[in-house]
């Protein structure tokens, strides 16, 4: 059992969730309530990581973050280390490929709030920020939590992108999914089995929580 890999995976998932939580609320709410030109294009772009093969996305991120790219150069100049094959690079990649998981459920959660309730909030004297806190989030939170749970689980299991952008550096970029692959390559099926079982347990509980919350969001607004 590679505890370092599990700890690294949890840390990566934690950072991803922490960064995507405000993004999911603000951007999900924006897409739910605002109508603008090109909204369909934006929504399609957000969904893109869902349909792209992870290795393809990973390849482009590797090229974009690489030492020869402007972004990679700038990072190197600013922080004196390279972005690819580092934990920071993994977090950025993880945030990007989790966008659809973080935004879609939150957007659905906000969309389920009747327009009249938001109007009632403003007629009650609530500023937009206060209405978000007192009315919208309490009604949309199952959607937001679902988004975060999916993001967390998805990050734990991601393989292709992590391998492309991060490689397999122990303690830096070797996540539990990579570690399972390494163990199998080394014919250590026992370790691979244990780690796989841990991931199964986490995934099953994730789905359970998600379903329970979706049921709840339906019940609340009926």
């Amino acid at each position, binding site marked *: 059992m590679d505890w370092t890999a599990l700890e690294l995976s949890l840390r990566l998932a934690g950072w991803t969730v922490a960064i995507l939580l405000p993004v999911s609320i603000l951007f999900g709410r924006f897409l739910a309530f605002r109508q603008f030109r090109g909204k369909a294009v934006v929504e399609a772009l957000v969904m893109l990581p869902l349909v792209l093969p992870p290795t393809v996305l990973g390849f482009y991120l590797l090229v974009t973050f690489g030492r020869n790219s402007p972004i990679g150069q700038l990072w190197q100049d600013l922080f004196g280390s390279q972005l690819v094959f580092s934990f920071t690079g993994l977090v950025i990649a993880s945030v990007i490929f989790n966008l659809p998981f973080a935004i879609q459920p939150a957007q659905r959660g906000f969309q389920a709030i*009747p327009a*009249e*309730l938001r*109007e*009632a*909030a*403003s*007629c*009650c*004297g*609530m*500023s*937009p920020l206060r*209405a978000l806190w*007192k*009315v919208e989030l*309490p*009604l949309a939170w199952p959607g937001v939590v679902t988004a975060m749970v999916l993001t967390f689980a998805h990050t734990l299991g991601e393989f292709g992108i992590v391998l492309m952008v991060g490689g397999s550096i122990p303690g830096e970029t070797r996540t539990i999914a990579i570690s399972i692959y390494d163990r199998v390559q080394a014919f250590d099926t026992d370790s691979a089995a244990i780690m796989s079982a841990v991931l199964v347990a986490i995934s099953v509980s994730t789905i359970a929580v998600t379903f329970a919350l979706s049921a709840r969001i339906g019940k*609340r*607004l009926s």
Partner: protein
Amino acid sequence: MALEVSAQASAPIPLDVAFRVAPGALLALVGHSGSGKTTLLRMIAGLWTPGQAHVAVDGRTWLDTGAQVNLPPHRRRVGLVFQNYALFPHMSAAQNVMAAMDQPDPVEAGRILDLVNLQGLGARHPAQLSGGQQQRVALARALARRPQALLLDEPFSAVDRATREKLYAEIIALRAHLNMPVVLVTHDVNEAQLLADRMVVIEGGRVLSQGTVAEVMGDATALRAMGIRELAAMLPAKVAEHLPDGLTRLDAPSGPLFLPHVGGPPGTRVRVRIMAHEVIVARTRPEALSAQNILAGTVAQIVPGQGPAVMVHVAVGGHEIIARITRRAADQLALRPGDPVHAIVKSMSVARDHVTPAGSDIGV
């Protein structure tokens, strides 16, 4: 603290409206669905902005498209009761009320809930309340905002008839506590006549008629828009005696009225809505007639309508009863203004929800 409203727009519906509501007065915006009345209410609240409009309360401008002033809804002191109440489902009744307060105060919330007869129900969530109770919470929440204008959007349309009658009586009683202008949007002329001091009749976004309820009821154009069968007069009366046969004798300036049982102890002041198409006019006092109410008066005016009918306004004891009769009948009786006549009203023609408690008299 009067509310002054004017609006012109071409989309989404054409609109050309101006009216003023005095403090404490209740103005009914009457029109069919699609007439623009709800849109107007939303404009006052700040939920919609037309091309050209001006909304001011108590001299303070909420909206002036010419001067680029447009306060967002939360900056306007407005209490809005939505048609379907729009209560916050995750909050209790008391929390809903407190949500509209600047400084949430459970004691004050309880006081307002008492005012709308919801004693002891503050802890219930909207899903645990009946339609009528939800309506009262919505009203309490609107009042908790300490509004400078109270707006009611078809607030009685989602409850059953018995509840509606009860709510009418409560609103009338509550008006003694309200000192802000109130605007009621409704398609129900009975409701407007029972509750409002003044009416604005809207059709296709335009004002067809406005004035006191009695004035609008005398306006043929307004009547055509509202449906001529809605034409009715309001008579003030006082419960005198409950008779053993189930009728109630009321004292009215026109003389005694016998109606099916009217609630309230003797002395209760009520208003009776008498439908014009139910009234018969006679030259001489008829005898051996089943109708119980024969009111002596004089013809005040005769308003010709479209088609075969005319509206005969009969002055009885300082008030008017309107009779909608055929032109043929008016010709046969050779009615002229000033002629003495009798207006005949069957007791059973007055529906129960056409008798309501008289509120405090608020001058307009």
